[in-house]
């Protein structure tokens, strides 16, 4: 157990670590067992999950570090369940799950990816199991009950904004339209919608707001187009460009907190909000452990970890890092039934107008 505690401390250094510390270092194995039995007595779901003894997570939402902290907090709260975490890019995780389904393999207990379409598709082929996590009651109202059949839920909230190098920019652009000003020509870095789901969401949203003319003028700004939108941070820190469009909000703030000269500017014409989703496959080998984990996502422990790592929290009663919150900023989320076609069209237009 000490191993886990040390690890937790190193990674989150904060509340998760503290929770582990009290659970791991301070408590003896005996006391922990007693405590665990107490929780079991209170929670039949944990009892059933413990009987299963294992849990396999397939997650693409959140980066490795945050995901490991969540896993470790789960292990600390619910001893006796062996947790395996497969953390890969969302689309890779989804493709793998599809391959497993096609080949009759069932390994995944909990799927967490950043694309709603994964879940509507899985639901359509009857691959998802329904579960209503009680603690999801603390989610912001806008994200409650996403699926009327409770087959998928919010797993992560991701914001796309503008980022910039404070030392090199007198006044950062404050809106998406401001990025089209002459002063930013040759200064912008961005990701590619063909590689990054977040940038694809941004393209769909920007076309809805301003049409293809925006993309045309954006292309004339000669942005440097990387793959992931994480590349915007790299370009800004390296000094290759000074302003990032379609940039990751949480990750930029995490880099700022690490001491890097970078900051976010939340556009007045809306940060683009993309939801990460989570669901339990109908053939999950450890369905109770999966439910326990799904509900755990909406615990205070997890929201504390998220806040610590500059992610929007999944509870209204846990503030974001630096005292930010969802209602302080203007945001927009793509909705609609034909998103897949809109994404494909957006990528095609991007290739035509931007590069």
């Amino acid at each position: 157990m000490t191993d886990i505690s040390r690890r937790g401390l190193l990674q989150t250094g904060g509340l998760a670590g503290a929770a582990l510390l009290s659970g791991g270092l301070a408590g003896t194995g005996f006391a922990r067992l007693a405590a665990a039995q107490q929780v079991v007595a209170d929670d039949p779901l944990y009892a059933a999950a413990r009987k299963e003894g294992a849990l396999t997570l397939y997650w693409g939402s959140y980066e490795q570090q945050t995901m490991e902290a969540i896993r470790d907090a789960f292990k600390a709260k619910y001893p006796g369940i062996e947790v395996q975490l497969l953390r890969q890019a969302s689309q890779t995780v989804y493709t793998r799950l599809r391959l497993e389904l096609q080949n009759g393999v069932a390994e995944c207990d909990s799927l967490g990816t950043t694309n709603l379409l994964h879940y509507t598709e899985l639901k359509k082929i009857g691959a998802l199991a329904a579960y209503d996590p009680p603690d999801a009651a603390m989610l912001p109202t806008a994200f409650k009950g996403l699926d009327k059949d409770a087959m998928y839920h919010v797993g992560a909230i991701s914001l796309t904004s503008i980022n910039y190098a404070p030392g090199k920019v007198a006044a950062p652009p404050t809106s998406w339209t401001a990025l089209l000003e002459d002063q930013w020509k040759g200064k912008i870095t961005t990701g590619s919608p063909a590689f990054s789901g977040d940038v694809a969401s941004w393209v769909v949203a920007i076309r809805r707001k301003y049409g293809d003319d925006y993309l045309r003028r954006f292309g004339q700004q000669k942005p440097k187009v990387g793959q992931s939108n994480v590349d915007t941070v790299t370009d800004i820190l390296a000094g290759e460009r000074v302003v990032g469009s379609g940039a990751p909000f949480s990750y930029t703030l995490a880099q700022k907190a690490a001491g890097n000269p970078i900051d976010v500017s939340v556009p007045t014409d809306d940060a683009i909000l993309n939801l990460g989703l989570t669901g339990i496959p109908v053939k999950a080998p450890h369905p109770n452990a999966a439910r326990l984990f799904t509900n755990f996502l909406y615990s205070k422990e997890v929201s504390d970890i998220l806040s610590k790592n500059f992610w929007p929290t999944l509870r209204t009663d846990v503030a974001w890092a630096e005292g930010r919150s969802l209602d302080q900023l203007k945001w927009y989320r793509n909705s609609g039934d034909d998103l897949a076609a809109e994404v494909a069209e957006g990528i095609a237009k991007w290739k035509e107008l931007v590069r």
Partner: protein
Amino acid sequence: MGVISTSSREAAPRPAMARVPPVKTAVLGAVILLLVLLVVQPFGWVLFNSFHDDATGAWTLNNYARIVQSAELIEPLVNSLLLAAATAMIAVGIGVPLAWLVSRTDLPLRRTIRVLTLTAFVTPSFIGATGWILLAAPNSGWLNTAWRWLAGEGAGTPLNIYSMAGAIFVCGIYTVPYSFTMVSSALDEMAVELEDAATTLGCGVLRTMVSITIPLAAPAVIASFILSFIQGLTLFGVPAFLLTPTGIPVVTTKLAEFYQLFPPEIYLAAAYCMPLLLVTGALFWMRRRYLGRKQYVTISGKTRAGRQIRLGGWRWAALFLALLVPMVSVFLPYAALLLVSLTRAWGQGLSWENLSLHWYWWAIFGNSETHTAIVNSLVYSTLAATLCVALGTLVAYIVERRLMVGASLLGAVTTVPIVIPGIVLSVGFFAAYTRAPFNLYGTPLLLIAAFAATFLPIAYSHGGSILKGIGPELERAARSLGAGEARTFLSVTLPLMGGGLVSGWFLVFIPIIRELSVAVFLITPKTNVMTTLIYNAKDGGNYEAVCAMSVLLLLITLLLVAVARPLAGLTGARRTSRKTAEAAGVPS
């Protein structure tokens, strides 16, 4: 002094006996079975997939029709061929002379250059690309900044790594190790009598090199050209980092897009690999046409004398040129990576306060996954490389000595996997081994099999080019003294292949340990490997960690090479023969 074989290649022994010995049958059977399991079956799935529709799963030719009809799909193919051809030319153009310098001349620091070349080889291509972005990005690249500092602010940007030229340069310098290792081990194993004869007849050093040495090493040169070409076709990291920003699509970045789409177009991706197979097939066919009529036998047993060519005044100029490769492929990029890995937050730049070993500490102790991943990487790579070299050498022997009907088909089959980009092959392996009766999903065996199969072509080509240099006379002698095929192979051929096999092992081990994409759908939390973690850190934008882990991966691999060196004489393959020669009074 060795004796040069003058018999023709056509006389290579065919199985003359009507009676087929049981050991030989068993070995042939095992080789064929392994090839079916490792290559035919996974590739069969890729081929099968290519004829299916992604949306409906029905049989279709539509994937191929789309490729032929769409300019958007043709353009990446053309770009890839350009990149591959240029990469191969750089790799051979630099690697072959470098191998000659190191194997044949009194160039100073020969051993160091061998080690440094291996170091470049250890570098995953996306790490090399990252290093070069730090160095030569148009605005921020340190080399460009240095230039502006020297020549004044208005001096512009001499280097732009985000270009086709930049990608060719980076692909090329990281592919040089292929041609260098293959050709230098061929030169190491080659007897020097013909070169001596040329010198005696008045040929200069250069003429001897060009008209005797390099042509005799032709099998290795051509094999390394083809492998380098395939490298250029199948590399993902370099074009993804360097060509995406300029909007130049290549096959591998296009494949990544197919997988990124929703729903992912996996079957179209499978079809998209087939043109690569055609091109590579054509290259192998040309190789056979060219090599088939000639003979390259120079080892016929007895002694090999080591003889060094004195470069005289050219020594230092040659050293400068030889060091240029490690300079651009190792020193410069790793200096950049090392600096970033030693900072707490690299955006702050270099200062005492910002210097820290934090990320190394994090990578070694702080990350729960790293331990397992390092152990897994080492164990899988060792086992897979051993299986790969054993099987590849056996197939090469069967093909070169024509031990069975259809041997060349066996060779062709062996060559297929490396041509298929990893991300597509990964799906083939998934389908091949996950179902009953194998049920290998989640086991180390799945990854070992996939790694061994992917790099089988390297072991096979390398084994083949060594075998071409070994005359069959000694084997015949053994046979006529009553030894069977198996005993002959084990007690005559194998020892003669010697050091070449060891370098072949590294030639496979190193690409396996740095391989990323073929494992993408095969790893599970318990069977994770180091490169996946590095890529995850890159995906999460944690560049300090990426750099620290890359430096660690490099150190671990170099340590292994250093440990293996005394055992194998890898970096001094000719040492023994040279010592013998010196002892015998042959001037060196």
